[in-house]
């Protein structure tokens, strides 16, 4: 047991201390942060201060621009003197304003055309704000002119609420957040299985081709070596995910503090770019927060760690067996194929699952150990019955242990078999040796 511990230590430390590991772990959250900042910067890149004069001939939108100012960077001046022409304004105010917004007299019930005059491009965020302000006011005016009750119309615009009662528990909100979490968890497990499984395989092949195994085998058992490697590399993966989670949170919190305003603006822009009206965006935000509160976070975290560990064990054992059986990395490709196929099928099934989390396909594939770690994880945010999850977990644990047992048999013989071209038939013999 002590020896297994030493092997785990070596496998873990030698990878965690690698420059590539440290870089990747630090860089990814930073990159995500940089990406966010760049997005914010691009979106709000009207650049320096922007002073806009609003020339509203009909005076319909008086006061409507007041709320749109963003600190010092964006300022609207509503000109009360509407007798001035653009040419005249340009001369008089050229130094004071960067742009003019010209709202001609018009029939608001029909086409509304507004003109923006400037020497530089208009940022998307600012454009959205202007459009939204005018469009909301126009809607109100038109409704009032036609003797509609604005409040009733607003009420009608809101989405209906679908209350879900599952297992006598009331669930609020929509499935969007569940889909998102399910998709994210499934995807993370998928990436982890592929990346770290391949790492186990390469590690085993390295020991075999470098003949380190011949030195090691005189002091440790093949099984100890295999388990040590699988656990050590799994711990590396877990460490990486935990560090990513922590660093991403730190970076995002930092960004929130520094770029809070812009991020808000960006979010509202996104919302409006999906052609949503303010009330709807608010509604969605409300839905998201309420359904987030409705998400069983402890259960998701627990399940994620569980499926992460056992899904990994189930597949890493197979990767270790392949690594021991093959002689070169190039051979490995053809033997990896049967292992990766179920993982890739799982990812395809995952999108079906998220659309219909209680379909037969979803239920069955969340039980089969080849796909359960990905599929069950995608189902859990949709409130899977506990008995289903426990059954799935039980099957996965048993299968993982079984897979380790079979892999150990292949590993034991494969790791010491040099030079021969290995066939599936041969590997089959090893299992029953």
């Amino acid at each position: 047991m002590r020896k297994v511990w030493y092997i785990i230590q070596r496998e873990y430390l030698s990878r965690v201390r690698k420059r590539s590991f440290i870089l990747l772990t630090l860089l990814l959250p930073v990159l995500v942060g940089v990406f966010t900042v760049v997005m914010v910067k691009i979106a709000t890149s009207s650049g320096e201060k922007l002073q806009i004069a609003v020339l509203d001939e009909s005076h319909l939108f008086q006061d409507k621009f007041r709320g749109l100012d963003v600190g010092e960077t964006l300022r609207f001046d509503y000109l009360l003197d509407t007798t001035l022409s653009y040419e005249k304004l340009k001369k008089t105010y050229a130094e004071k304003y960067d742009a003019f917004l010209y709202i001609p007299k018009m029939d608001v019930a029909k086409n509304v055309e507004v003109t923006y005059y400037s020497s530089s491009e208009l940022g998307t965020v600012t454009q959205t704000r202007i459009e939204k302000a005018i469009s909301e006011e126009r809607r109100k005016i038109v409704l009032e002119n036609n003797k509609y009750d604005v409040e009733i119309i607003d009420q009608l615009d809101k989405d209906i609420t679908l209350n879900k009662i599952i297992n006598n528990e009331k669930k609020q909100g929509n499935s969007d957040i569940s889909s998102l979490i399910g998709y994210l968890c499934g995807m993370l497990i998928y990436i982890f299985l592929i990346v770290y499984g391949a790492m186990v395989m390469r590690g085993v092949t390295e020991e075999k081709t470098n003949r380190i195994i011949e030195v090691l085998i005189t002091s440790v058992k093949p099984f100890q070596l295999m388990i040590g490697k699988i656990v050590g590399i799994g711990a590396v993966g877990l460490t990486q995910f935990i560090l990513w989670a922590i660093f991403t949170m730190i970076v995002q919190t930092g960004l929130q503090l520094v770029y809070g305003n812009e991020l808000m603006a960006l979010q509202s822009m996104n919302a409006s770019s999906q052609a949503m009206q303010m009330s709807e965006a608010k509604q969605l935000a409300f839905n998201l927060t309420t359904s987030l509160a409705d998400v069983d976070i402890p259960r998701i975290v627990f399940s994620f760690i569980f499926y992460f560990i056992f899904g990994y064990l189930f597949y890493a054992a197979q990767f270790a067996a392949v690594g021991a059986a093959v002689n070169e990395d190039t051979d490995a490709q053809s033997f990896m194929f049967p292992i990766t196929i179920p993982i890739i099928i799982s990812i395809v099934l995952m999108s079906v699952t998220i659309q219909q989390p209680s379909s037969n396909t979803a239920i069955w594939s969340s039980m089969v150990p080849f796909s359960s770690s990905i599929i069950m994880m995608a189902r859990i945010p949709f409130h899977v019955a506990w008995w289903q999850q426990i059954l799935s977990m039980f099957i996965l644990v048993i299968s993982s242990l079984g897979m380790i047992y079979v892999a150990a048999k292949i590993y034991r013989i494969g790791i010491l078999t040099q030079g021969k071209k290995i066939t599936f038939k041969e590997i089959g013999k090893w299992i029953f040796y």
Partner: protein
Amino acid sequence: MALLEIKNISKSFQNNQALQNVSLTILPNKIYGLLGPNGAGKTTLIRNITQIFYPDSGEILFNGEKLQPKHSNQIGYMPEERGMYKKMKVGEQLIYFAKLRDFNTKQAEEKIDYWLQKLDIESWRNKNIEDLSKGMQQKVQFVATILHAPKLLILDEPFSGLDPIAAELIKNKIIELNQKGTTIIFSTHRMENIEEMCEDIFLINKGKIILDGNVQQIKQDFKQHLYKISLAENMQLNEKIQQSISIQKHENNELIIQLNQNQKPNDVLRILLDNNIELNSITEILPTVGEIFIQKVNSIK
């Protein structure tokens, strides 16, 4: 009592019988040479001793007990193809191997300090294996093999890739270990090392031991009664001499002669002296291990 007793072991892989009824006795405190052409079964034999494989039949006794995994801490094995983690530092790697041999960190450090100093490679301690030359890696591998002070040391081509100075250093360490009581089996194709270092040899071919015993004794057994005679001056020998002595070669002032069945060296000397031929020296030519190797292996084909 024999340190290692191999009794009638056989091992086959698929259709290939790698070892057939091999029996060997390894006595403590000796240096053995394991010879054989490529593919003869040397590595398979070694792997049976290091318990990488188990024989299909027959048994191996270590110190009178049946060979078991617990004995592996008393055996050190350096495979022909070096096995080290390329991206690990020399020191860390040695500590890792030592810990797997049940040393604690402190003991391991002490041992490693001692050997790194002895082999003059202390300054490499913090270098990655992949940054070392092949010969330098070899030295590190050697340290890894002997760190746990094994009773039985099995070295497969320990000198390959080493420069003459490093080879001499390792050779001296091997002899030193032997003097301190380590039994050594080494497998090599370098006959000069066998001649220099081994008291006993085993010659294995096609999975069978075809020759074993004391090197000097084997040489005597295989000698062809050849003598090298160095004449005082370069001269032509008369016909009478040439008829009574079988001259294999005559080059400048050196003669190589073969005694016939009833001849003794003295008889040859007498003939030469009677003919007033002045001699500088006479030496017996014993076959080299290499020659015996070739002769023996070819005779079986």
